[in-house]
Structure formats: C-alpha cells, structure tokens
C-alpha cells in the first residue's frame, strides 16, 4: 500500500514536471533561436513571453479538432495517442537522483527500478515509430504518407548506430540498469577529472557519445534530420492533417522524447547525477549560481533606466525566486534544521547536477537547430549507412577489445 501511494505521488510529480518542462522547452527554444538570429522572440504574453506556453496550450485545446472526411478514423486517432503514451512510458525507467530517505521511507528518485532499464527504453523507442508512421498513413494525404515513410526509414536506419554506440558504455559498466551505471561513474581521476564514461581512463567514450548524439537527433526528428516534417517539400509531413489536441499530442511527444534521450545520454556518458567538480566545491556551485542570478536580477530590476516598464516589478520577483532556490540548496549546511528538511536539501544536489547536464544537451539541440541547414534525404541515408554505422562498429570493437584485455 505504501509502495502504491509513493509510486502514485512520484508518477504525478514526474508527469507534471515533464509536461511543464516540455511546454517551457518550446519557449526556451523560441527565445534561444530568436537570439541566435538577432531577434527578441516571444515577448507579449507575460514578462518576456513567459506565459506564452500557457496561451499556446489554451489555444491548441480550444481550437476545433477537425477530422478530415477521407481519413481512416481509428488509426488517425490512435497515432497521436500512441506517440504521446510511448514518449511518457520511456521516461518512467530513468532515475533522476540518488536514494532519498524522507519521514522514514527510503525511496529512489525514479518511477520504476528496472534492471533492464536500457532495454526497456530501446523497446519503447522502437515502438514509437508507429505513432509517426500510422499518423502519416491514416491521414490519407500524399505529403503525410511521404513524411511517415521517411520517418520510419530514418528511424530504423539511425537506430542501428545509436544501439551500437550505447552498447560500449554498457560493456564498461557490465550492467543494464541505469541506476547502477550512474553510480559506477562517481569519483574523480587525479582529484579533478570526473570518472564519467566519456572520460574513462581505459576506453574514453567520446566517439560513442558523438555517434549517439547524432543518432539521437535523427531519432527525435530534429534539425538537421527533420526530413519527416520538412515544410518546404512536405507541408508539415506526417502531422499535416492534424489539428487541436491531436497536434498538441504529437508536439508534446517530440519534446518529451528529446528530454528522455538527453537523460539517457547523461546517464550513459556524462555520469548521471554525479557532480562535475570534487565535493567541497560541488555543493557550493548551485548556491553560488542561484545567488548570482538573484543578484543580477535585482541589479537589473533596480536600474531606473529600465526601458521595459514591467521589468521593474518582474525582475525583483524572479530575483527572490532565485534567492529562494539558493536557500533550498544551502539547506544541507544548516544542521540545526529538522531531519526531513536536511534530507530534501541533500537529495536536491544530485538532481541539480542531473538537470544541469540534461539542460546542456537540450541547449545543444536548440543551438544545432539555429545553426545547421537540413539534409537531403539521400544524403541522410548515405551518411548513416556508409559512415556512421561503420564508425560505430569500429568504436564498439575497440572498446570491446580494451575491456576484454583489461579483465
């Protein structure tokens, strides 16, 4: 019973945080892209456009959901459901932080502690092709069909180098559980180089990481591999005929998939929730970071020359929020506080490092979108089959040889 209640609380928390993150990822993406292109980006709704995701959501939900007359209704409605459900399932085996003890309950910061976690994620991501392919086919539209076909071809092709790339850290870790993989990467070489698999002394996984990231871009249909929704050739690809909530489902699924695959890369190559710096410094970093952000916000808010009138009020508010976060992260130093608060303060530090790494990879996604043009479809296929796949095999063989010699 306890287990069910704790699991329900965790599931609700994860779903809420994930969906909010997916919505705000759109805002961050639009802002970052805008600044890369010397624009301002969303600005009208709320301070600095911060309420834009909310208004987008209201707009999408209240719009009329048109079901075109010639579609295959059952599969047309099944496709977005499949896409969003599978995207949310795969996050359930990803751990977010170390073990936490709260009010006498010991629990892991993850939904399901599965000892074949990586295989589960691979299985679910293999199934998520159907959402896109079915959506394209059921729409009864030649552009949608082409988008769906492209997507399934692309996802099958890029799954191979991705699987090969993620096998090599598994060879080093000798386990399939994401939790054990992350725990294995704690500690430092020479006192300052973290023992992440990307810096592994025996077999550094830099090539595997790069191959994995390239394949991950293709798996999530992101630029430069967003051929399934190439708007200048296919209108909007597989979701041309979708509107309202169904379109929102596809949209959410894409962003949730991005988060999942970034979390997977973090666990496999970047040491999970282990800090990037040795311990006395590592605990101070989030406090200094949030305190600095708070000071900066107060400084800009207090300036009388603020050209944006509302900034005078909104900046200090966000400054207070940032100071509050700094206070939360310094909880573990205030030993006179009751034990639950101390436990929360201690448990948040691993979550901070995990979130920071996932955020860095998500920023990379957006950065690449603002920088690179789109591939042509034949280039896309030739790139993976004649270059990425052989390179992935070679690096897997090299890692296997090193691991075998090391034992």
């Amino acid at each position, binding site marked *: 019973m306890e287990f069910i209640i704790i699991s329900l609380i965790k599931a609700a928390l994860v779903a809420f945080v994930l969906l909010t993150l997916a919505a705000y990822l759109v805002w961050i993406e639009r802002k970052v892209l805008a600044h890369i292109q010397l624009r301002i980006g969303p600005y009208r709704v709320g301070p600095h456009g911060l309420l834009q995701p909310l208004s987008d959501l209201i707009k999408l939900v209240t719009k009329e959901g048109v079901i075109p007359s010639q579609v295959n209704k059952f*599969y047309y409605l099944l496709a977005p459901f499949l896409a969003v459900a599978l995207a949310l399932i795969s996050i359930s085996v990803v751990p977010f932080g170390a073990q936490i003890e709260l009010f006498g309950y010991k629990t892991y910061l993850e939904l399901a502690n599965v*000892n*074949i976690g990586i*295989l*589960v994620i*691979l*299985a*679910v991501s*293999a*199934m998520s*092709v*159907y959402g896109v*392919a*079915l959506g*394209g*086919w059921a729409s009864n539209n030649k552009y949608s*069909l082409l988008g*769906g*076909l492209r997507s*399934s*071809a692309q*996802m*099958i092709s890029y*799954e191979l180098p991705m699987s090969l790339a993620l096998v090599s850290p598994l060879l080093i870790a000798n386990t*399939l559980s994401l939790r054990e993989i992350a725990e294995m990467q704690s500690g430092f070489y020479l006192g300052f180089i973290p023992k992440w698999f990307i810096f592994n002394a025996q077999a550094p996984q830099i090539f595997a990481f790069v191959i994995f990231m390239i394949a991950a871009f293709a798996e999530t249909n992101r630029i430069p591999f967003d051929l399934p929704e190439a708007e200048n050739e296919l209108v909007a690809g597989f979701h041309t005929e979708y509107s309202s909530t169904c379109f929102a489902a596809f949209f959410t699924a894409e962003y949730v998939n991005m988060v999942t695959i970034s979390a997977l890369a973090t666990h496999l190559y970047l040491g999970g929730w282990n800090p990037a710096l040795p311990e006395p410094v590592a605990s101070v970093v989030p406090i200094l970071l949030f305190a600095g952000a708070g000071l900066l916000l107060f400084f800009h808010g207090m300036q009388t020359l603020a050209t944006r009138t509302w900034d005078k009020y909104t900046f200090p508010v966000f400054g207070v929020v940032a100071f509050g976060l700094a206070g939360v992260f310094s909880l573990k130093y205030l030993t006179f506080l009751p034990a639950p608060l101390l436990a929360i303060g201690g448990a948040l530090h691993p979550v901070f490092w995990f979130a920071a790494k996932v955020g860095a990879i998500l920023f990379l996604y957006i950065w690449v979108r603002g920088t690179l043009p789109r591939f042509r479809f034949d280039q896309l296929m030739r790139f993976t089959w004649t270059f990425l796949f052989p390179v992935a095999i070679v690096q897997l063989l090299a890692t296997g040889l090193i691991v075998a010699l090391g034992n």
Partner: protein
Amino acid sequence: MDAFLFFLFAAIAVACGINLVVQTHPISSALSLIGVMGALAVLYLLLGAEFMAAAQMIVYAGAIMVLFVFVIMLLNAGAETRKSRATFAKLLGVPALIGFLMTVSFLIQALLPRTEPVKFGAFTGGTAQAIGKKLFTEYLLPFEVTSVLILIAILGAVVLARKEI
C-alpha cells in the same frame, strides 16, 4: 496476480491472432501481429525471461514489423475484396475448425510427457548475462551457423537488389 496477468495477456494474444486473420486491410493485420508480439513479450516477462521479452519488443515488434508496415505503406496496398464463400465452407467452417483444434489439443495432451506445471518466478536464467554465457559456450555452434545463414541472406538480398549483374 501472476495467473490473472497470464490469462489476460494470453487472451489478448489469441484475440489479436484471430483479428490478424479476420481483418481485410493489410495494415490492420500487421498491427494485430504487433499486438500478438507485445502480448507474447509480456508472457516472457511473466516467466522470468526479461531479456527475451525486451529482444522480442526491439527486434520483432520494433524492427521487423516496422519494415512490414513500411512496405505495406510504400505499395499503398488497399483492403482485399472478399469473395462469397462456398456453402460447404459457410456451413462446416466453424465446426470443422473447432473439431480440428480439439483434436490437436487432445494429441498434445496425450502424446507429450507430463511435466511439472509452470511456476511464475521460479526461472531465474533469463538475464542478459545468463543468455550471453549460454550463447557463447553451450550453443556457440548453432549461434555461429545462424549468423552465417543471415550473412548469406544479406548477400542474396544485395545480389537481387543490384540493377545489373
């Protein structure tokens, strides 16, 4: 709980299997096959063969069935038209099928040696490590022969796909 899950997913597998034959549209049939494979994966998981379950989903339900669906979509195959059946099939089809299945189940019961009933959770040799060890020691020869067979199939596919020889 285990028995309930077993019967639930066994029923889903059988229902999807029947649906696979009954449906007229190839896409519906292919998706029913995916349903069968998914239900089988859950049955593997119940028996403790976790690696087999994941491999079933990744290889069969994922890779192979995506190719099936891909080809069906590429050819844009429509629903097949059903001809009116002979009166003989209409009258005797279902009873004959039931009789056949009963005979088969009777033969299986009678001919196969009685074994212990399966206990859920008793089998622990289903981890990736155990399967890898078996595959590369006890069953090395069949494993290598299979890989050679697949290599021959790939070469055959390349030869067939080439425009001129």
